[in-house]
């Protein structure tokens, strides 16, 4: 068992053949790959729109598109990246593949529902894209009323599409909670769960408890558009700020749906490439739960200048600061894990370290924005844009990239090209900072976000930002080639190329159909290095 085992004859990839076998598969690993294909495709699209936006913003005035096209491209970029890339990105793709392997199960609890959730994503995305034939959408991904009630017909489709994609998210979360509760291998107690599983568990709790509110909110928006029900319409006695409450009650916890799994991936990467038992296992596990819990109490910080009362603003401002506590606990524990570790700088680790650096900036600027007095100045400026891109791209996307490289040998049974993988890290990391650091400056100078045009004095920083964006774009394109090249030409991977300790590395690469030939029996924690 300990001898390096080259790809076994039968594995989940060659278990059955043909497109149909993939579209009807109930194997969590194959569904994970279906998600990978979908998410990467959406990511390419969303990225393309980002590139177009930065071309437009290269110079003041009209560059390549007019103002209404700009609004539509911006909405598409936001909607695609949030609902179709970052939310399903880690849980539904990497989580689906890794979770049952991590806990020593044969599959997730409800394989059919797992497949259904993928079809929900695809159906929802198709409905949303149908809006392109209905004059597009220019509301931004937040669908704020009353504008979203009045603007083009396409909005209804995007709203209904997001509603259907919400089901995908709920079903994935539900499946994961049940899987973690009922399908752990013998000996796999809760305190022996890998931290990625803890992160997925916290994420799933948010998915199950917050997404239904998004569902009803989007239904009400659709009802507003079709029936004019007036609940969010001030003309009819409604309250548009109530819409923002409803929307952010979901969408703020959703931010943690995006970042918590990324934190889980980073926990895995840092301990694996430090070859050292993780520092503060329980603290990291509990802080995931803590973040999930606090996330439900802070949504009002999105409404500081929206007409929310001062009292509510002060309360939300204070509670928002609390998010910093469990987040900092994680960061300190990761750094403590690095201390005196035998660190190897392979590309997954580079992305994990990049995450630490960028996410810390994103997190600390979040505390700045939580301060109500400062936020009044920074609200709806590029400072906010830079802040959440540091969290979403600098955090989540760095973790996705790190996770893809880390589990690549397990997923495909082949190795990728390490040199070019490092090149992608350098391009993405440098490009990212060149893009978004200037936006902090632009924001503090007062450049408003979402605007098509800007004053001439903002030109030079915007140019730097655009050049940075194209650097990131190049980095991700090279990453795509690294993945495809590894898939086709990579050399065969061993069972455990990184010397990591979690269960997925004790089965062959790629794993057999039911993951383990013999059910594993767990006798120790997940990170018994030294």
């Amino acid at each position: 068992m300990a001898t390096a085992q080259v790809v076994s004859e039968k594995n989940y990839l060659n278990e059955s053949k043909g497109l149909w076998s993939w579209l009807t598969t109930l194997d969590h690993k194959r569904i994970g790959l279906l998600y990978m294909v979908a998410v990467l495709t959406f990511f390419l699209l969303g990225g393309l729109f980002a590139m177009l936006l930065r071309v437009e913003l290269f110079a003041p005035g009209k560059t390549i598109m007019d103002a209404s096209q700009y609004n539509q491209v911006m909405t598409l970029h936001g909607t695609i990246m949030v609902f179709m890339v970052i939310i399903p990105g880690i849980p539904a793709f990497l989580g689906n593949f890794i979770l049952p392997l991590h806990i020593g199960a044969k599959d997730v609890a409800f394989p059919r529902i797992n497949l259904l959730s993928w079809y929900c994503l695809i159906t929802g995305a198709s409905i949303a894209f149908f809006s392109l034939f209905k004059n597009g959408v220019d509301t931004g991904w937040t669908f704020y009323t009353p504008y979203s009630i009045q603007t083009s017909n396409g909005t209804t489709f995007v709203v209904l599409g997001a509603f259907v994609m919400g089901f995908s998210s709920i079903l994935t979360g539900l499946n994961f909670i049940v899987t973690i509760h009922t399908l752990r291998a013998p000996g796999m107690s809760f305190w022996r769960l890998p931290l990625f599983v803890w992160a997925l568990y916290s994420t799933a709790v948010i998915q199950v408890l917050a997404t239904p509110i998004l569902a009803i909110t989007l239904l009400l928006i659709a009802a507003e558009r079709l029936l004019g029900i007036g609940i969010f319409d001030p003309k009819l006695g409604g309250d548009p700020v109530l819409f923002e409450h409803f929307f952010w009650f979901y969408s703020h916890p959703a931010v943690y749906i995006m970042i918590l799994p990324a934190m889980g991936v980073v926990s895995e990467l840092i301990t694996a490439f430090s070859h050292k038992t993780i520092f503060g296992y329980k603290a990291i596990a509990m802080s995931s739960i803590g973040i999930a819990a606090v996330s439900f109490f802070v949504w009002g910080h999105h409404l500081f200048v929206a007409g929310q009362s001062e009292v509510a603003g002060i309360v939300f401002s204070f509670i928002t600061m609390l998010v910093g506590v469990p987040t900092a606990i994680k960061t300190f524990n990761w750094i403590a894990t690095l201390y005196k570790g035998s660190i190897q700088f392979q590309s997954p680790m580079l992305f994990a370290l990049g995450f630490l650096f960028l996410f810390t900036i994103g997190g600390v600027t979040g505390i700045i924005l939580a301060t109500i007095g400062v936020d009044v100045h920074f609200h709806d400026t590029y400072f906010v844009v830079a802040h959440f891109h540091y969290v979403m791209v600098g955090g989540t996307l760095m973790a996705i990239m790190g996770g893809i490289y880390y589990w690549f040998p397990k997923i495909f049974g082949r190795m990728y090209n390490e040199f070019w993988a490092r090149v992608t890290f350098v391009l993405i990391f440098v490009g990212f900072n060149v893009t978004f650091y200037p936006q902090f400056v632009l924001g503090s100078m007062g450049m408003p976000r979402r605007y098509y045009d800007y004053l001439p004095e903002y030109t030079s920083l915007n140019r730097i930002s655009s050049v940075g964006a194209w650097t990131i774009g190049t980095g991700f394109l090279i990453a795509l080639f690294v993945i495809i090249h590894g898939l086709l030409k990579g050399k065969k991977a061993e069972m455990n190329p990184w010397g990591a300790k979690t269960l997925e590395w004790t089965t062959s690469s790629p794993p057999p159909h039911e993951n383990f030939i013999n059910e594993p029996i767990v006798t120790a924690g997940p990170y018994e290095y030294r």
Partner: protein
Amino acid sequence: MSTANSHSHNSNLAHHFKSLDQQFDAAKLGVWLFLATEILMFGGLFVGYIIFHGLYPEMFAEGAKHLDWRLGATNTLVLLLSSFTMASGVQYAQTNQKKKCVTALVITFLCGCAFLLIKYFEYSHKIHDGLLPGKFFSNHEAEHANLAMYFSFYFCMTGLHASHVIAGMCLIAWVAVRASKGQFNSEFYTPVEGVGLFWHLVDLIWIYLFPLLYLVG
């Protein structure tokens, strides 16, 4: 070391579970999580309702006058009865009483039909009077300027609830057919139990909808 194959084979046991008990626990946990999402989804509407009720109490009182509490109360009793027969249906499945189980499920289904029928009469009456949500509101005797909003809530809440009644009836029909084929027994009755929980939730929501919509004032 044992492998999955050494465990007893059972057509109801999926390959990735070790025992029917484990599978039952998983299914039930899943159903409860699903019910939690339903509670939150309806809850969003309730939150909106209570907030606007607090802001415009006279409007809600006027709206409630247009509803017939007798029909609402009848529907409450119909749903309570159906919950009873549903619970009994599960119990009969648990105790291998196939015939009684099917009868109980059929009565539950018929109660669902009765509920929808009464709802249909209520709706057509509202439509006739122009008491419709939002921009379709055309009743000229309305005193309160925003009475349309009351009917927005009325139709959104009862409409969403009715769609759940229909979904529940489809599920009940499904388990009734399976029960009549003798597919459930004391060892395996998970689908009846799950559908039952869903149906009770539909009843639960109506228990709140009835006083909130029909009896405020």
